């Protein structure tokens, strides 16, 4: 090996590098620009992840906007209350009480068990890619389950659970909203972490169609609307909408929901609690809805039933399949001759 190359190359390149480095070092002092010290301390207080949740391109430009344009100091979602207080201290402002912590929530419970796969998919493993085609999952509104949200999450707060649905780690989530933007089906929402109940379904299909495609979907039975003690729930597009201001977080809607699509937040262990409560509820009630002999066979109840539990047995007599019935009482209100009642 010819070492003479090294002997020439290393010192000459090294000297050249040192020369330019020295020149730049001198220039950086000579041409230094004095920045507003406030901007620097705000920039230090900010998380420095440049997520863009504040609406500015990065933490540095948000700091600049606070100092020079008087931007609001509570826009940093990942930083939360702590950062807000630090900025307030720098700017000499009051924080004005605590702001509500927010988290992202997946508004879908259509996991692998609850929904049906209609087709095999061997294309690009991405929700955004598959959403251009028809859905492979039975529900046209539900989670596609390829985890685009997981990829985009800068905090690794989302992971895929064993049932094929992304789950959000509420501790790690900073509500930066990247997953909300990424999700092609718009089923991830930023909610206040103090909000206690929500309907985790985005399907605007009618009840009978929902129950065909997903076991956990909202069938628009309106039980939650009927049972809400403060009338905070209204139905829009076959989905319950909860008025946060009037809602008292009593949890009644969660109890009565036949498909468990109404859930309590945060989801610590929804399945265990939800199931036992629902079962206890059923047992204590002990009643069954039946169609009496007054039935005239009009079929109004069959159309109204969101779970297809009602079928014709004779010409002018219908019967309710008790295994399917969720006791939503829709048939009772629909029956023109009051032939349906609890027994």
């Amino acid at each position: 090996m010819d070492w003479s190359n090294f002997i020439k190359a290393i010192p000459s390149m090294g000297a050249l590098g040192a020369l330019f480095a020295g020149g730049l070092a001198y220039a950086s002092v000579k041409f230094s620009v004095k920045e507003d010290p406030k901007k620097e301390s705000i920039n230090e207080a900010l998380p420095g992840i440049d997520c863009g949740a504040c609406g500015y391109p990065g933490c540095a430009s948000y700091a600049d906007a606070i100092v020079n344009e008087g931007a609001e100091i509570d826009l940093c979602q990942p930083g939360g209350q702590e950062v807000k207080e630090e900025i307030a201290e720098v700017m000499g402002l009051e924080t004005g009480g605590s702001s509500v912590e927010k988290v992202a929530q997946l508004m879908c419970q259509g996991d692998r068990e609850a929904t049906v796969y209609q087709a095999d998919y061997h294309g690009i493993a991405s929700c955004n890619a598959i959403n251009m085609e028809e859905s492979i999952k039975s529900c046209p509104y539900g989670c596609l389950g390829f985890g685009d949200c997981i990829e985009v999450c800068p905090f690794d707060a989302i992971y895929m659970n064993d049932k094929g649905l992304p789950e959000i780690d509420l501790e790690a989530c900073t509500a930066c909203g990247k997953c909300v933007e990424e999700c092609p089906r718009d089923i991830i929402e930023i909610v206040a972490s103090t909000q206690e109940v929500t309907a985790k379904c985005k399907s605007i299909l009618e009840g009978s169609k929902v129950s065909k495609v997903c076991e956990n979907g909202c069938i628009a039975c309106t039980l939650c609307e009927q049972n809400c003690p403060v009338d905070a729930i209204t139905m829009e597009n076959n989905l319950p909408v909860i008025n946060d201001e009037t809602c008292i977080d009593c949890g009644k809607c969660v109890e009565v929901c036949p498909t468990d699509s109404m859930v309590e937040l945060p989801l610590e262990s929804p399945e265990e609690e939800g199931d036992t409560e629902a079962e206890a509820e059923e047992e204590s009630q002990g009643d069954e809805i039946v169609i009496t002999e007054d039935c005239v066979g009009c079929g109004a109840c069959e159309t109204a039933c969101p779970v297809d539990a009602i079928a014709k047995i004779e010409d002018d007599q219908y019967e309710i399949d008790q295994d399917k019935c969720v006791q939503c009482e829709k048939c009772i209100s629909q029956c023109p001759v009051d032939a349906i009642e609890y027994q």
Partner: protein
Amino acid sequence: MVDLGGLLLIFMTASITNNFILSQFLGICPFLGVSKEVPTAFSMGLATTFVMTTSAICVWFVNSFILVPFGLEYLKYVAFILVISSFVQLTEMIVRKVSPPIYKALGIFLPLITTNCAILGLALKIPINGYNFIESTIYGLGAGVGFTLAIVIMASMRERLAFADVPKPLKGAPITLLIAGLMSMAFMGFSGM
């Protein structure tokens, strides 16, 4: 002693006939990226001209006194990139100090002059063409002026274009590239000079 005619020829060749953008297709990125408004385009052109001229001078020194005497021509990419990035850094500091609005308007494209292939192309052509010190300086200046010329023409056309009724599929980048192509054809006419 100094061949003024030859220098003028080098200048005209670098700036018009062999315009770096329109004839050699180098430095397309800032050409498309910073050509939305004339003032910004002009200051981008000035910054690039500054870097090109100073780099050309420095590249000539590095080439003549370090690379050639030590037989290190194979290191020219490394050495030239070092020169260019240092001068881009210097330009950035100066622009930031002298004119914060221009610094803000140029944004990411200022540090990106480092990766502007027009400048490395210029640096690599100096040893190939065998220019002396003055010729190199004029060559760098000419290339910078040519760059400024092209980007300012482009920017003024795009300013007018903002009011034109461009068909929807051609809006934005497509129409810009079409214009660039037409400009390039126009500049091809100079090669007969």
